[in-house]
């Protein structure tokens, strides 16, 4: 008897994390501010961990709507949980912010360069975050606090528009309650009941305690804030090689292929998002790019 002709089979390709997303399931959603939410997710299929380095980002797929680059904001020591803090500003992020427990999210990554937390050992560490910029810095803060003896002074400077716009409020209080790190929080405007500082982040730079020649500064926030913060740090004597900034703009493919995130000679998604300031200083404040 003649053998049965082989049936053509169609198999879905295995997700590789680069071009095909892995599936993750939302475990919880926490409201940070009026328009910003933190999703905690776990892998839905094979694999139980998602190792990443502080500062890296993932491309998150809102199925049927689109894909967006979002920094990983969880603890690198807990790769079994993937945590992203997302502000609802467009169609895909609005959809992601509405997801609830059990919903699926596509994840490609992790992509990009990391904060130099290893290289910074033995130095003072200054974190400067503005608004949503605290999210990509949080993994580096977790790492530094978990390895506290490896660093000198740790200063965490955080600015937000108002007390209602602050991320990770409880966590900031927890860090402030430690005796081995200093936390400076400031807001641009506040109602009378606010007991904290009012003023811009750059004003707080002068109050931070660090030894400039032996300091590494990690910074993420709005462009204007970063520009003036860099000036403030350099005025205090921190070298441009020791100032690191996370540039998160226009990333679309995550692989350096589409060119949307090009900043002069670099692609933010592939060569960044974390750069030493000295590497991008010529392009940092250029208005045309």
């Amino acid at each position, binding site marked *: 008897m003649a053998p049965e002709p082989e049936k053509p089979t169609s198999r879905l390709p295995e997700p590789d994390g680069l071009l095909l997303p892995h599936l993750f399931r939302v475990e919880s959603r926490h409201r940070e501010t009026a328009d910003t939410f933190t999703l905690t997710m776990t892998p839905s299929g094979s694999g139980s961990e998602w190792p990443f380095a502080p500062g890296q980002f993932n491309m998150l797929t809102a199925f049927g709507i689109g894909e967006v680059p979002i920094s990983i904001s969880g603890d690198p020591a807990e790769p079994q949980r993937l945590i992203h803090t997302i502000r609802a500003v467009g169609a895909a992020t609005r959809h992601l912010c509405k997801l609830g427990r059990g919903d699926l999210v596509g994840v490609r990554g992790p992509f990009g360069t990391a904060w130099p937390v290893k290289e910074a050992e033995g130095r003072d560490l200054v974190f400067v975050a503005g608004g949503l910029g605290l999210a990509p810095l949080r993994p580096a803060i977790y790492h530094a606090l978990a390895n506290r003896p490896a660093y000198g002074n740790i200063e965490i400077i955080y600015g937000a528009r108002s007390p209602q716009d602050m991320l990770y409020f409880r966590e900031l209080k927890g860090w402030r309650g430690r005796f081995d790190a200093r936390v400076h929080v400031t807001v*641009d405007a*506040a*109602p009378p009941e606010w007991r904290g500082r*009012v*003023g*811009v982040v*750059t004003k707080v730079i002068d109050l931070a305690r660090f030894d400039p020649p032996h300091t590494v500064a990690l910074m993420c926030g709005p462009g204007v804030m970063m520009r003036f913060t860099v000036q403030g740090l350099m005025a205090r004597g921190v070298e441009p090689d020791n100032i690191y900034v996370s540039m998160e703009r226009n990333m679309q493919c995550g692989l350096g292929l589409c060119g949307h995130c090009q900043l002069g000679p670099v692609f933010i998604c592939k060569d960044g998002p974390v750069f030493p300031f000295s590497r991008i200083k010529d392009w940092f404040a250029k208005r045309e790019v």
Partner: protein
Amino acid sequence: METIEATLAAHPFFQGMTPQHLAEIAACGRRVQFNADDFLCREDEEALDFYVIISGSVSVEIFSARRGPLTTTTVEEGEVLGWLWFEKPYHWHLDARARQVTRVVALGVEALKAKCEADRDLGYDLMKRYAHYLAVQFRVSKLQLVDMYGT
């Protein structure tokens, strides 16, 4: 108790000032303690003092009839308070209120101006420090105006 001169010498605003100039300025000063919610100054009042904040925290407020007091900035230990005491009509433009027990050295503006007139070196030194302070305040105010965190 520490002399006012020594207190001023340790304050960032007066860092590096000569002992002679510090002594002249200290002669215009007196120590004052404000309790929480005490006003250091009120809008439209005559500006009689220039405050050197030694400890505590002060909120600088604009009063809005509809929204109540709005904090525009806070002034903390190591800073100074008093914007336009060199300019007529020597009136405060804003309210400043202690947010907790706050200790200051209050420098009498009239005496200070007289010292500056009599000793131009002192006047120039003080004006340089004051100009730097104002430049920083203007820069900070501009950054606040642009709403950096707007999406």
